[in-house]
């Protein structure tokens, strides 16, 4: 079986860390900034960053529709933090004009855990992973509510912080900032299963 090619949406954010984590999880990883680059990947990571910036740049550079089409067509996608926001069908408190790619039937609350002074690290028990993963939460969002098709993978302090709906995976926290690549391995397996 050939190695899956996974893109990291490289408009803004911690792209480099995801590229490294994906490579460590045995995928070929490459940055994606253009529709033609998107067409060449088997799966995509939407990194952490500023969701307002990523949303604006995606619209400006013609990625919004192609990405929605790929997600609707079954391409596996994984979003962390801002990426989780971008994969939500609905944002509770969007900036005016802030659009998402969608893909998960959920409502998210941005910066729900607070500002930077409230950013924290904690162990998170994720369904399907045997021991807790290192959760790095930075001005992190949480998932306010989910639809019937959405599987809740993890909670912290009573709030949903990891979800999956079909081929779309999202976490409030940043596994890419740790040396623990188990969630990236899970995602690479999802991509492999689709090929």
């Amino acid at each position, binding site marked *: 079986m050939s190695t899956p090619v996974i893109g990291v949406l490289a408009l*803004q954010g911690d792209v480099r860390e995801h590229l490294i984590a994906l490579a460590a999880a045995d995928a070929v990883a490459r940055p994606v*900034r253009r529709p033609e680059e998107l067409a060449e990947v088997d799966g995509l990571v939407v990194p952490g*960053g*500023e969701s*307002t910036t990523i949303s604006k740049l995606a619209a400006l550079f013609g990625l919004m529709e192609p990405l929605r089409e790929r997600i609707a067509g079954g391409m596996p996608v994984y979003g962390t933090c801002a990426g989780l926001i971008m994969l939500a069908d609905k944002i509770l408190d969007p900036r005016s004009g802030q659009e998402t790619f969608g893909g998960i039937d959920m409502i998210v609350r941005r910066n729900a855990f607070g500002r930077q002074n409230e950013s924290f690290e904690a*162990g998170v028990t994720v369904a399907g992973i045997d021991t807790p993963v*290192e959760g790095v939460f930075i001005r992190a969002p949480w998932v306010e509510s989910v639809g019937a098709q959405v599987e809740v993978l993890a909670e912290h302090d009573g709030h949903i912080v990891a979800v999956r709906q079909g081929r779309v995976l999202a976490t409030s926290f940043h596994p890419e900032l740790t040396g623990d690549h*188990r969630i990236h391995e899970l995602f690479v397996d999802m991509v492999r299963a689709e090929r």
Partner: protein
Amino acid sequence: MSTTPSTTFQSPETGTARVKRGMAEQLKGGVIMDVVNAEQAKIAEDAGAVAVMALERVPADIRKDGGVARMSDPNMIEEIIGAVSIPVMAKSRIGHFVEAQVLQSLGVDYIDESEVLTPADEINHSDKWAFTTPFVCGATNLGEALRRIAEGAAMIRSKGEAGTGNVVEAVRHLRQIKNEIAKLRGFDNNELFAAAKELRAPYELVKEVAELGKLPVVLFSAGGVATPADAALMRQLGAEGVFVGSGIFKSGDPAKRAAAIVKATTFYDDPKVIADASRNLGEAMVGINCDTLPESERYANRGW
């Protein structure tokens, strides 16, 4: 595969180095804009800024007005925090750890211990490990960057020469840092001890940089960026993102210029995008030639 024991995670921990440095990782590829009020902050956010720097006067005006430049009014910082959802940074004077305490209590997301303000201490910078709020500091060379990281800085930026609209000093600082890192890469272990002495930086940090081939924290450019091409230049020289101070709100059409600089920062290696972003932006800020600046007015010399 790592299997960290769950006992490590008794209770959530705030203010860790990973959380502070990780915050800066989220800003990469983005533009951080100086703003002096809520209205400008909204313009910056709408243009795609990843964060704003709240300050009373942009550096160009600090230069013009002279006098002692200090931390901004808490009211003004809170207004800006209330106006936008992106992170808000604010400046303290070098060594003025009480201004930094105040900024932390206001809930700013990052503190810039900045040479643009008048230094409060001629010998010491603030102990940045003592804070939950992360710090960004300016540097003109690798040794200075590593001294700031040793003091707890979670992000480094070039100093440039703020408020001039002239990118020459930021280019000098970034090239200097990059060249010194490249030099370290070529050193063997014996040479790293002497290198640390020469850089006046802790050996452990010097060794880490030699191994990583980069700083252990995010490196941005600051000082003098006025055009989309300036921003792209800094990124091609190795900056992971760009601060823009006076360059936006001292120009003819701030909203348009801000959006153009954001585009050029993301597509820094695509001259066509930069060309499109550069069209019809109106007047850029006028700018000052750095070699006509008297020594006493050079901000980059502040801090050590």
